């Protein structure tokens, strides 16, 4: 699977997972087989992951996601862009998100 991530890409949660918010914790529950490395895994995201996940709404490009998060969080070393790309690569590899059309298409 191509996991190359572009800041001009748009992503949304996959229909192959169910996302639940339970007592403040975001839980990603695989619906179909082949999500994650093992068959029976559930995933939760840390605070960084949750902040990014909430922005993956199928509308904003990753560049816009970085902009929104940069307005909200201190980012002296440009870590936000690295975090966004890192998480998106991970989620895409696990088939938990899907890439939609690029903004320039």
């Amino acid at each position, binding site marked *: 699977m191509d996991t190359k991530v572009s800041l001009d890409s748009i992503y949304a949660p996959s229909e192959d997972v169910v996302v*639940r918010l339970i*007592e403040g914790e975001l*839980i990603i529950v*695989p619906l179909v*087989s082949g999500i994650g490395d093992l068959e029976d895994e*559930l995933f939760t995201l*840390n605070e960084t992951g949750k902040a990014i996940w909430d922005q993956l709404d199928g509308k904003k490009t990753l560049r816009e996601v970085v902009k929104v998060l940069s307005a909200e*969080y201190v980012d002296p070393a440009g870590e936000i862009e690295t975090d966004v790309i890192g998480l998106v690569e991970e989620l895409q590899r696990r088939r938990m998100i899907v890439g939609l059309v690029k903004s320039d298409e």
Partner: protein
Amino acid sequence: MKQPSPYSVRLESDKASLWKDNPPLLTALDLELTERCNNNCIHCYINLPADDSNSAARELSTEQAKNILADAALLGCLSVRFTGGEPLLREDFEKLYVFARRIGLRVLLFTNATLITPELATLFAEIPPLEPLEITVYGMNQGSYESISRTAGSYECHRRGIELLLENKVTFVVKTALLPPNRKEMAEFRSWASTIPWMDTPPSCTIFYDLRCRRDSKEKNRFIKQLRLTPVQIQAILSRNKVEYQKEMEEFCSKFIGPPGESLFPCGAGINRISVDAYGYCQPCTLLRHPETVYDLKTGSLRDGLTNFFPEVRERKASDPDYLKRCARCFLKGLCEQCPGKSWLEHGTLDTPVEYFCEIAHFSARDLGLLGEGEMGWEVADWRERIRNCGAQDVLELIL
């Protein structure tokens, strides 16, 4: 944004630990989809005939069952156990299964596997339950299996179901119940079980048989009692690996035994995990169906049951004079299976002592060196000392 990668964390099997001191109101649900079964097992505590139309007519409708699942998910529930009877007898099983998975529940299915179809195996492969199916194996051949299931053709259906799951790589584990027709097959069973790809540990084996949960047949109860192992037999099984058993039990006793007092529910029944029967009555555990401890979900809600009804049930104190004289003061609680669920099954009460379990606990305690001959657990004042000495004696025995 100062947290480093990784951003995602795999949840451990103890999902509730994620929330530490603030767990969801409900973490796991047992949903008994039917009391009917296509087998007629000699030891079973719940099975009604598959064609019992009265029971079928009273069962939760598809929509009612879905509503319960949805409510459970809203309360934070992460997994549902579909049990029975045989859950696959429900014509709407697939609908309920897919619904449960689509709302983000893991599904644990207890089944005899006889009704697994190619379509169902494919469904489990495509939308995995996220928990291994648990399949009870009553025998390693048609003779032993059907002596227990009392259903012609059931062995062949059972093995075909298992083959379908293997072919489709559907994760499952097997377990058994030790009964007269299969007693000589245990080694063969364990050996076969070890060939199943997902059997990481030896299969579990039921050696305690509960009486009918609806208290519906004295005749069946008499028969179940005849099947029960004696305390000597049970202890022989439990302690077959003597050194390992002694070590495990010393650790167990140091943590978990002691007089329970008047409180009826030192267990976790009705907290975070509850059971719903086939007709929509919520129970604190799978066994306890005493009318005073069940909550009707058709006129109430899971939230109300968990926040109001079950906490009140758990406040109940024992009142049976015999219980207060013996069980409440007995330090063998923890070794003994006595609980409100067992009292309900055996006596129709919440706290009448069950002699069978008392005998087993006392036999085990004597074998472990916790009690002398003729001593009873409720007579021992220095029980903490007994537990400490039990371990010390054992070490000496091993050295000498």
